[in-house]
């Protein structure tokens, strides 16, 4: 009995740590290692549709066949490179526009009274949790040829024939900005709310005009929120699949769409894995920046 309780006291904490640690290790981390392995395999005509890179020959030699062809293929076929660049560009500009709209919104919420704040936050959080698919679908109802936007503009006499927004680059930008705006506002609000107002009062007392105080004090102090919010928009926007598929045209070939087609259309798993791994490598930088700033924010 005493031996058992002594063992429990010493190692009992592992009963709490191990279940989530093992679960996430097996079902979140291992899959990445596995995808890496498959990206080095050959396409094969059996189930699963890829060759084994490790094989044991009859005289117990372990054979390692690595196929770098999938990665070479990514560089050889311009589609992938262009899709990466196009995704980066789209995500970058959407993030800037989200920041330009989200910053004043977060600032206005941070300056509201406490009771108004909790209601405004709930209003921002609600779309944050509502499905992307449904919100993109709702947006389509506004911007399509016979949608609310075109019919209002026609009714007002501002235009004489409907604007073609659907299936254009504009629609993809509108979709990303509309979907990801709450992801920008919430972290910005979190830093702006903690801002020490007495610093701004001191600047005003010393004769600094409000815009000067904003640039010298508010903006630098809210940088962690700016970066966290930007990364929360930028990173998932690069991999966006639903928005370019439903709102974009054939030109809006973002990497998420290429990946989906490679997988479901061409059923080429090794190439799809190679695309995913290459994509992940490109994301390591932004994700590291995000992790760095979000842990800083938690510690502060």
């Amino acid at each position: 009995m005493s031996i058992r309780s002594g063992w429990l006291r010493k190692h009992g904490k592992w009963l709490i740590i191990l279940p989530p640690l093992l679960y996430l290790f097996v079902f979140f981390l291992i899959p990445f290692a596995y995808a890496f392995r498959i990206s080095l395999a050959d396409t094969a005509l059996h189930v699963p549709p890829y060759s084994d890179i490790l094989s044991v020959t009859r005289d117990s030699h372990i054979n390692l066949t690595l196929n770098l062809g999938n990665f070479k293929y990514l560089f050889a076929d311009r589609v992938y490179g262009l899709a990466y660049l196009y995704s980066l560009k789209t995500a970058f500009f959407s993030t800037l526009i989200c920041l330009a709209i989200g910053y004043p919104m977060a600032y206005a919420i941070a300056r509201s009274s406490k009771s108004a704040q909790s209601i405004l936050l709930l209003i921002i959080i609600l779309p944050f949790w509502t499905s992307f698919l449904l919100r993109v679908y709702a947006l389509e109802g506004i911007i399509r040829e016979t949608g609310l936007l075109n019919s209002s503009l026609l009714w007002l006499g501002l235009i004489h024939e409907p604007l073609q927004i659907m299936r254009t680059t504009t629609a993809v930008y509108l979709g990303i900005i509309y979907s990801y705006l709450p992801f920008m506002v919430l972290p910005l609000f979190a830093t702006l709310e903690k801002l020490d107002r007495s610093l701004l009062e001191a600047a005003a007392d010393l004769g600094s005009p409000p815009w000067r105080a904003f640039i010298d004090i508010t903006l630098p102090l809210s940088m962690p929120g700016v970066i966290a919010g930007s990364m929360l928009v930028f990173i998932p926007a690069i991999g966006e699949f639903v928005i370019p598929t439903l709102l974009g045209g054939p030109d809006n070939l973002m990497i998420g769409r290429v990946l989906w087609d490679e997988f479901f259309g061409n059923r080429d798993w090794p190439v799809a894995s190679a695309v995913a791994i290459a994509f992940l490598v490109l994301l390591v930088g932004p994700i590291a920046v995000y992790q760095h700033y979000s842990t800083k924010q938690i510690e502060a």
Partner: protein
Amino acid sequence: MHERAPWSLMMVLYLGIAILYIPIFVLIAYSFNASSLVSVWGGFSTAWYAQLLHNDQVLDAAWLSLRIGVVVSTGSVILGTLAAISLVRFRDFRGRLLLTGMVNAPLVMPEIITGITQLLLFVAMLHLLAWPHRGFTTIVIAHIAFCTAYVTITVRSRLQTADRSLEEAAMDLGSGPVRAFLDTTLPGIAPALASSWLLSFTLSLDDLVISSFVSGPGASTLPMVIFSKVKLGVSPDVNALASLIICAVGVCVVLAGYLMRRGARQRQLDAQMAET
């Protein structure tokens, strides 16, 4: 106290909120449109809702999504709470950095990558272990992985601010550490657990990309059915279905927010009582 923002900023805020909400309200309004032409108002009708009740494909998908949601949120609350306790209470253990990383990564990882990699693992597991078959089980496993991350972050921030003096008092009075935690701290974080259950449920109910990858033939969740319908074009019964889901998610989120706020108010009252 708070100096109000200038009116120009308030305008941007209200405009931003309007942009966020107008499409949703228009969608809900048009779900009651009698006309089958989606852009012409033909009078008020609930016909599209009635039609949903006779659509077996939609009903099957809804039932599958609800079952998945309940199992996923229960599993994630258990795993996420354990992870939060590990990160807050055990300051250093081997694997702490790994656990922190694995909890934060799903929040920023593009779903399409998570989906593909998890599918590859499931295919290999099925090949080697004859388990799990693609469908309900694989969707549940994949959803728990990312919902656990959200639960951990919610519960972790709540645990960090929890007062440990009661728990220490219970231990001084002879309770074991587990007993003391269950009797004192657990009731305090219960609202956070309930709200993370609801949030996991909405995340699972909403997910399209990961489910599409890891699901197998015959197992279509509600978002998968909607996606295939929407790709074919706007149809009025999708409006009705979308409105129902948006309302369900709205109720879950408002309830979760209410639980968190009530928990916070209770703590304030307790603190005041303790001072007097």
